[in-house]
């Protein structure tokens, strides 16, 4: 945890921006677990007019338009809300699975590979971090 507590929000933001601009990263999303609010997104558009534009960070220039069209065609995951609800459902299902198999255990990390993408989902007690990125060329 070293150096964590001293981190300022700006540095945290910088981490997120940098992560979202790494090669291959299509989109990122941070959800609050308490109320399902979308705290941060990159590389996703919102289909709700009530969404707060401040929660969206700039995605990497090369990949953003690319991932947008890509996402729309291949997965239909072009809206943050859509991704959020689907991830939520997936996470709930995974949580049920784990709880059904091993008592008092919980999901720490979900990696889901598709033909074209990989979703990495990190659930935590308060937040959920989702990252969608290209899989390396075979």
């Amino acid at each position, binding site marked *: *945890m*070293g*150096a*964590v*507590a*001293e*981190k*300022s*929000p700006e540095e*945290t*933001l*910088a*981490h*997120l921006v*940098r*992560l979202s601009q*790494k090669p*291959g*990263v299509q989109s*990122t999303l*941070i*959800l*609050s677990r308490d*109320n*399902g*609010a*979308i*705290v*941060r997104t990159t590389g996703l558009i919102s289909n*709700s007019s*009530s*969404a*707060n534009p*401040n*929660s969206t960070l700039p995605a990497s220039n090369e990949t953003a338009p690319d991932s947008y069209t890509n996402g729309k065609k291949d997965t239909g995951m072009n809206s943050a*809300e859509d991704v*959020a*609800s689907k991830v*939520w*459902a997936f*996470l*709930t299902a995974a*949580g*049920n699975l784990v*709880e059904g198999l091993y008592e008092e255990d919980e999901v720490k*990390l979900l*990696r889901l*590979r598709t033909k074209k993408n*990989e979703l*990495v989902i*990190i659930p*935590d007690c*308060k*937040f959920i*971090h989702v*990252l969608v*990125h290209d*899989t*390396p060329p*075979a």
Partner: protein
Amino acid sequence: MDSSIVQRREEILAKKAKLAELKKQRELRKAESSQRQSLTGSPAREIVSPTPRRADERTRALDEYIDNILGESRPSSAQPQSPAGGRATRPTSVISASQLSSDNEAQSGPGAQYQVPLSMVDQGMQTLSLGNLTTVYETEGVDVGPPPKREKEVITYSKGVQADIEWSPRKPRGAGESESERDDSPTRSPHTPKRLSRRQKERDEEIRLQLKREIEEEIKAAQKAAEAGEVQTVSGENFPFKTLNNEELTAVENSDDFIDFVERSTKVLERALDQQLDYDILADYALGGANVDEEDEGYGSSGGKKGRRIKEIAQFWDDRWSKKRMVSDLGFSSKFPELVLASYTKNPSAPHDPDGLVQVWNLHMHDRPEYIFHAQSDILTAKFSPFHPNLIIGGAYSGQVLLWDTRAKSSPVQKTPLTGSGHTHPVYSIDIVGTQNANNIISASTDGVVCGWTVDMFSQPQEFLELTSPPPAKTDDMAVTCIAFPQSDPTYFLAGTEEGSIYPCHRYDRAGAKAGVDGRVKYGGHAAPVMSLDFHPAKGQIDLGDLVLSSSVDWSVKLWKVRPPAATGPSNTLAPGAAQQVAPLLDIAREDLVYDARWSPVKPSVFALVDGAGSLEVWDLNVDVEVPLQKVTPSENKRGALSGGMGYMKRSLNKLAWEKNEGRRVAVAGMDGVVTVFEVGSELGGVETKTEEWSGVKRLVGRLEGASEGVNGK
């Protein structure tokens, strides 16, 4: 709230109507079933027989319930007087379930599945489940009839407020559990009151859940009615979206929880991204075949050459922190071999940043350090504590010795004071000696002061030793650039000086020698400051622990065989007063300043050096003592080019460190602040060593000794 009450009332009216209809149907059915009963044989009788009675009671209950509702006398319905009061909860729930069932089917599998049969029980297929249900109601009426009713009422009204908890994941799970409980219960004896009350509680729970869901559905529907129809359908499926306004957003983002979480999650994500670059576990070798790893080692005819290969595997650089700093030291963690620490000097163009910096890099996370530590003064040396994986010690230009903890924040958890009791000159060399349970930090500063510290107490040195140049020198002062301890003896060390000589030193007074520099022996040979000293790690069959490697800016690396401290006594008596000068076993001249030279931790004959030209050389004494086996330079990265301006100097490599457990990796770094990690082939690293390698070094040393003695004799 008001609107929900109105809605509720409407709904109750609707239910009333339905109940009335149900009542009619049931009376009809009762008549039918009594006929049927007379027709059927005895086996069925047991199951069927409760029917009339139950139907009777049910009718009574319904009547009473309807009366209650009509009279608007809710409190009286909660009175404990009649079993019917408790029973009345049932029909409500059943009806609401059946009302809901269409919604629920779309919403969640488990809930819907069990609700559908429930409603069917009441409408058509009594015969199968009636026996169970009857017993429940008898007991229910006796023990705990009233409370559920009251509870139900209370909860009905408070639901609207709690609407936004709704989509939390616990809820569907709760429903699933109660369902499974319910499945169990018929197999067990339904006559135990405990079991029953528990079951009943669960049923209440179910009812509550249903009511809750129902009401929320209504509220949501009412709220979303204004919005588009599409949105409404989405909201039906636990839609996890809530808009945060700017203030909420800032609040969340400034919370420690969030910052903490992002710190952790981004690290995991970056590791995940970097990991898949190394190897794709979904690789299908049947396809393509173009990507087969050609660098597989140890196979094929040219295996010998391949074993000596050096491959660059990572470069570490951070835009924010590495810029315009030079790397002053490097070290691998012995507990976590993927962690490399690098200490840095100050960034002269950023006066507001801390001068001193230590970054801990992870081989699995290339673009960002795992930890960042700060200090007020340039860090000149740092290393992981070999005895505690969380601790990092460092020496600063200010003369302070610092201690960081990876569990703590970025500033040091302990530091020595800037007073006369410790160092007042830059600390360029630091070591931790001793054992797991008794170890000391030994630090040396350029004024010749050597201090011993314990991790527990940094306020004052445990030991204080001032090294002075032995008599023949013109001055007492001794400028110590580096110290090195042998593996076997923590009380004795070598000190390299700016003037080029290397002196043996004792930490304590011992027989025949005082603490401090042992003036009887001097390892002379270097003509310029000694930059590094390294004792042979000596972990093998033959003890080579007396071999020392020294590097110097006189463009050479020298190999020494040091005398054991006890053996210095007699030689002193032979030639009192005069220091005996020992010549190096081997003098390897290089083409540039040599800044660092280190033994491989596993291969007895292998060492590596870095020089001012920016090359890493790996030597094997058994193979060649004049030419390096391998010579590589870190790849020209764009960062180096970007921050350029120092040209040739820029490429200079200051430090090198071997990974200590396997000896497969070497980290090098220098002026440009970029840390580069190489992996060496199986002949230069790896745990398996052959006996010949050890005996080979032994023979070589013997040969060299013979030669130098021959020279000395003449």
